C-alpha cells in the first residue's frame, strides 16, 4: 500500500533559558495508507511534539516530512486541507452549541453555508451526537465531548486523522466506543489513523503497527506481536513488559538493592 506519511530526520529543538532542549531528535517514519498507527512512548518522549510538527502547528528545526503527498515545509496549506487533528485537550468552546461549532468548522474548511449545516447534521448522525446538537459543548459528558472533537476533525473527510491521547480520562465503556469508531473510520473510509497513547491495552487492541519513541528517537517499531516476540521474549508477553524492555523504564535492579536511607 502507498505511504501516506513519511518523515526523515524530523527534529525539534526548543530554546529555553537553560539552553537548547532537544524534544525530538531525528525521527524517521513511514505510515501506510489505511493503517492505524500507535505512537507510544513515556511522558516527555516527544510524542506530542512530533504530532504538532506533522500537523503544521510547529515548525521542525531539522528534517523533512510529507503528509498525504504534501511537503510539510513547502506546502503546509496542502497538508492542512488533507488532515484532521484532535489535540489532547480537544478544541471546542464550552459556551458554544454543538451545532454552531460543527457548522463553523465546516465553513473554516470553505464549505458553503448550507453545505456546512448539512455536513454538521451528517457528522452528528455518524458520531451519535444528533440529540445533542443544540446543547452547549460544555454540557456534554466526557465521551460525548470526545466524539464532538473527532467530528470536528472529520469535517472535511481527511485522509489522515491524528489523535493525541484520544481516550485519556474516558470511562471503559466510552473507550471501547471510541476504539470502534476509529476502526469503523478506517474500514469504511480508508482513513489513516495516527494516534498517540499511554494505554498499552489500547495500542494492543487498536493499532496495526506500533512506533515506540523514547527521548525523542524511535526506539522500536513493528506489529504488537512482533515487538512482543523480539523485546518481551514471547508472542504472548504482556505489552507492558515489552514496552519497559524497550524504553528501559521501570525500577532498575541497582535502584532496588540500594538502601533507602543510611
Amino acid at each position, binding site marked *: 500500500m502507498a505511504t501516506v506519511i513519511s518523515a526523515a530526520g524530523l527534529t525539534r529543538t*526548543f530554546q529555553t533559558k537553560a539552553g537548547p532542549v532537544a524534544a525530538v531528535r531525528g525521527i524517521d517514519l513511514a505510515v501506510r495508507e489505511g493503517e492505524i498507527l500507535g505512537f507510544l512512548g513515556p511522558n516527555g518522549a516527544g510524542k506530542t511534539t512530533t504530532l504538532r510538527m506533522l*500537523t*503544521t*502547528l*510547529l*515548525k521542525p528545526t531539522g528534517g523533512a516530512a510529507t503528509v498525504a503527498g504534501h511537503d510539510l515545509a513547502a506546502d503546509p*496549506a496542502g497538508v*492542512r*486541507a488533507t*488532515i*484532521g*487533528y484532535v*489535540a*489532547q*485537550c*480537544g*478544541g*471546542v*468552546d*464550552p*459556551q*458554544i452549541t454543538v451545532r*454552531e461549532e460543527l457548522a*463553523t*468548522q465546516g*465553513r*473554516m*474548511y*470553505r464549505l458553503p453555508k448550507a453545505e456546512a449545516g448539512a455536513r454538521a447534521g451528517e457528522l452528528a448522525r455518524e458520531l451519535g451526537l444528533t440529540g445533542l446538537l443544540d446543547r452547549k459543548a460544555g454540557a456534554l459528558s466526557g465521551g460525548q465531548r470526545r466524539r464532538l472533537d473527532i467530528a*470536528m476533525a472529520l469535517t472535511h473527510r481527511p485522509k489522515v486523522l491524528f489523535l493525541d491521547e484520544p481516550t485519556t480520562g474516558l470511562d471503559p465503556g466510552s473507550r471501547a466506543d471510541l476504539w470502534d469508531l476509529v476502526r469503523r473510520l478506517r474500514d469504511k473510509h480508508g482513513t489513516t489513523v495516527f494516534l498517540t497513547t499511554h494505554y498499552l491495552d489500547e495500542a494492543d487492541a487498536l493499532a496495526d503497527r506500533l512506533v515506540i519513541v523514547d527521548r525523542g528517537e524511535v526506539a522500536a517499531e513493528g506489529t504488537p506481536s512482533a515487538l512482543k516476540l523480539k523485546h518481551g521474549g514471547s508472542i504472548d508477553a504482556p505489552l507492558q513488559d515489552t514496552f519497559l524492555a524497550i524504553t528501559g523504564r521501570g525500577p532498575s535492579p541497582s535502584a532496588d538493592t540500594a538502601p533507602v536511607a543510611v
Partner: protein
Amino acid sequence: MLLHDTALIYGRYLRQSLRSRFALLFGVLTPLLYLLFYGPLLTGLPLGGAGSSWQVLVPGLLLQLGLFGALFAGFTVIVEKGQGVVERMRVTPVSRLALLLGRVLRDATVFVLQAVLLVLAALVMGLRAPLAGILIGFAFVALLTLSLASLSYALGMKVNTPQEFGPLINMVSMPSMLLSGLMLPMTLAPAWLDVLSHFVPFRYLVDAVRDAYVGRYTGTPMLYGALVAVGFAALTVTVGTRVFRTAGA
C-alpha cells in the same frame, strides 16, 4: 478567501460578545464614572484649549476606553489556548491573518459601540461638539482598539498564564494613560513632562481627537494623529499575524 475567513471568525466572536451583554455594558462603566464624577470638576478650570471642558475630557475618555479595554483582549486568547480552540483553528486552512483580523474587528466593533454609549451620556452631561468631529473620534477609537487588541493577542499567544499577562498589561497601560494626557491636556504640563509625553504614541491620538471635537480637521495634530494611528495599526497587525502564524506555544 481572506474576506470570507475574516467574516467567519468575526461572526463567531461577535456572537460570543453578544452572548454576554452584561460584560458589554460593564466595559463602559469606568469611563462613565469618570464622566459623572470627574467631568464636573473640570467645568470651571482653565484647560488652555478651545471649547468647553467636555470637549477636552470626552476625547480622553474615549481613548481611555480603548486603551484599558482593548489591551486586555488577549486574556480571551489565553483561555482559548487552554481549551485547544486556537490550535484547532490553526490546523484548518483558515487564513492566519483572518484569525487575528476577525478577532480585532470584533473588538473594534464592541469598543465603538461602547464609545457611542459614552458620547450619548456625555451629550446629556453637557458636551456639545460637531457631528463630523464626533465621527472622527469614533474612527480613532476603532484604529486604536485594532492596534492594541492585536498587540494584546500577540502577547496572549506568547504568555502561558493570566497571572503573567495582567501585570504586563498594567505596566503598559498605566504609564500610557498618564503620559498621553488622557485626563488633562499635556499643554498644562511642565516642559519636561510635555517632552516626555511626545514619546508616547497615544498622545498624538488624543490631540487629534480633541482637535476634531472643536471642529479643527486640517491642523498638524490631526495629520500626526492620523499618521501615528494608521502606522501603529499596520505595525501591530503585522506583529500579531506573525505570532498567529508561527506560535509555538
